[in-house]
């Protein structure tokens, strides 16, 4: 709110208040004084009327467009999809009770993946990749943008450019590789592939170890290729992680656990072999 001394009325001073006048931000007294000036000054009155008219025109033009009819149901569908399920909550409550009772045997009735949800050590290592996924792949900045193979190779850099054709060759035909680049989150570098299949987003994320390791964490699944992989659900994302000597590797998605595990199975061994070549170079 603005107060002005009108002892020295001038068009310049009134025009300096016109923005606030049009926005209805002036105090009542000042507003009345501006109105009086506008009534007696054709030049300022015309400018004020012009500004008010522009405001109306903009309101009318912007207001013409409504949200598509399907958007509301799409949002409701996503809300349902991201809601934590009652069974998960009950499971967590049951696990807490079991832990409280020291019932080691009873814990075996939960799968390794469900158990993983309760392991802080695992969550801490998986969190490294998840942070990059949330920072870089959650959102829509890359949608509708096409990155050529040359661009992706450039953005990956010479060490990791060879990963792009390898990834393309092992992902399902209906899955698209949208982005391949190096990015940085919290000062840490990541090699990041964003893949998409039927509106679901998948990430392959690689980062150099900085003291973290899955080595001492129980509950890994051993794939046929020999890759040890940890899986969990964190913040409504499916997160799988593995490691090589120098790198941590993550497979993360907003899809189902089964689909994320499938992508992890497809990519884990070729990525491990690629990284092993880098490590031995």
């Amino acid at each position, binding site marked *: 709110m603005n107060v002005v001394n009108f002892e020295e009325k001038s068009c310049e001073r009134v025009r300096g208040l016109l923005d606030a006048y049009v926005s209805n931000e002036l105090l009542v007294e000042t507003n009345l004084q501006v109105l009086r000036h506008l009534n007696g000054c054709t030049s300022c009155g015309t400018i004020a009327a012009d*500004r008010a008219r522009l405001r109306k025109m903009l309101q009318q033009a912007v207001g013409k467009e409504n949200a598509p009819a399907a958007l509301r149901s799409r949002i409701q569908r996503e809300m349902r999809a991201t809601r934590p399920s009652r069974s998960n909550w009950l499971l967590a409550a049951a696990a807490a009770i079991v832990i409280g009772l020291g019932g080691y045997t009873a814990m075996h009735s939960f799968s390794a993946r469900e158990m993983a949800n309760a392991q802080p050590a695992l969550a801490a290592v998986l969190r490294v990749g998840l942070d990059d996924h949330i920072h870089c792949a959650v959102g829509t900045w890359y949608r509708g943008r096409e990155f050529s193979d040359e661009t992706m190779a450039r953005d990956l850099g010479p060490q990791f450019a060879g990963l792009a054709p390898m990834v393309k060759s092992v992902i399902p035909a209906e899955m698209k590789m949208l982005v391949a680049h190096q990015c940085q989150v919290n000062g840490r570098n990541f090699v990041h592939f964003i893949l998409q299949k039927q509106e679901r987003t998948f990430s392959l994320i690689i980062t150099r170890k900085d003291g973290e390791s899955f080595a001492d964490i129980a509950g890994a699944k051993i794939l046929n290729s020999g890759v040890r992989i940890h899986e969990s659900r964190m913040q409504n994302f499916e997160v799988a992680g593995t490691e090589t000597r120098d790198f941590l590797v993550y497979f993360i998605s907003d899809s189902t656990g089964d689909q994320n595990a499938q992508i992890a199975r497809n990519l884990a061994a070729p990525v491990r072999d690629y990284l092993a070549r880098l490590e031995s170079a």
Partner: protein
Amino acid sequence: MPFNTHHGNDTDFEAAAFPYLDELYRTARRLTGSSTEAEDIVQETYLQAWQSFHRFESGTNCRAWLHKILFHVVQHHRRKSFRLVLKKDDDDTFEENLPYEPPIPEQLTDDDVLAAFDRIPAHYRDVVLLADVHEFAYREIAETLSIPVGTVMSRLNRGRNLLRQELGSFAASYGIKQTAEARGQ
């Protein structure tokens, strides 16, 4: 904590938030220039709002709260798209740069107005949209965009001037076109 209080009650959320769906979509549409991107941004806004609905105080301004979330989402997208180029001194130099106030042409279509609006820089567009289209108070705009009220006022002045200039150039192009057509006849 009971199971369903983490996200609040779906019905309460929908009753409080969905009345603003059109308005949020229009905002996102103008800020992004793309209907597809606007839909994604609005969806993301609603999901974020829903996930933090337990922190929303019933009876407070849901409309302003939703807009604040939407602008956070938009800012995130802009950073990703490398579109936002903001000169540090832009907010302080408008008086010297824009002393002339061109009149608004008479015969303009809605599309002309939108095309002109879409051409002004994003950080001015944000403020003009909130102030002139949605009629938020300066204080609410400052809160929504996390900028001082003085910056809101300077950006609004600059944004309105730029919009008038853009519309003035439309008028000039119409005049040229009409003159050419008249010569042709």
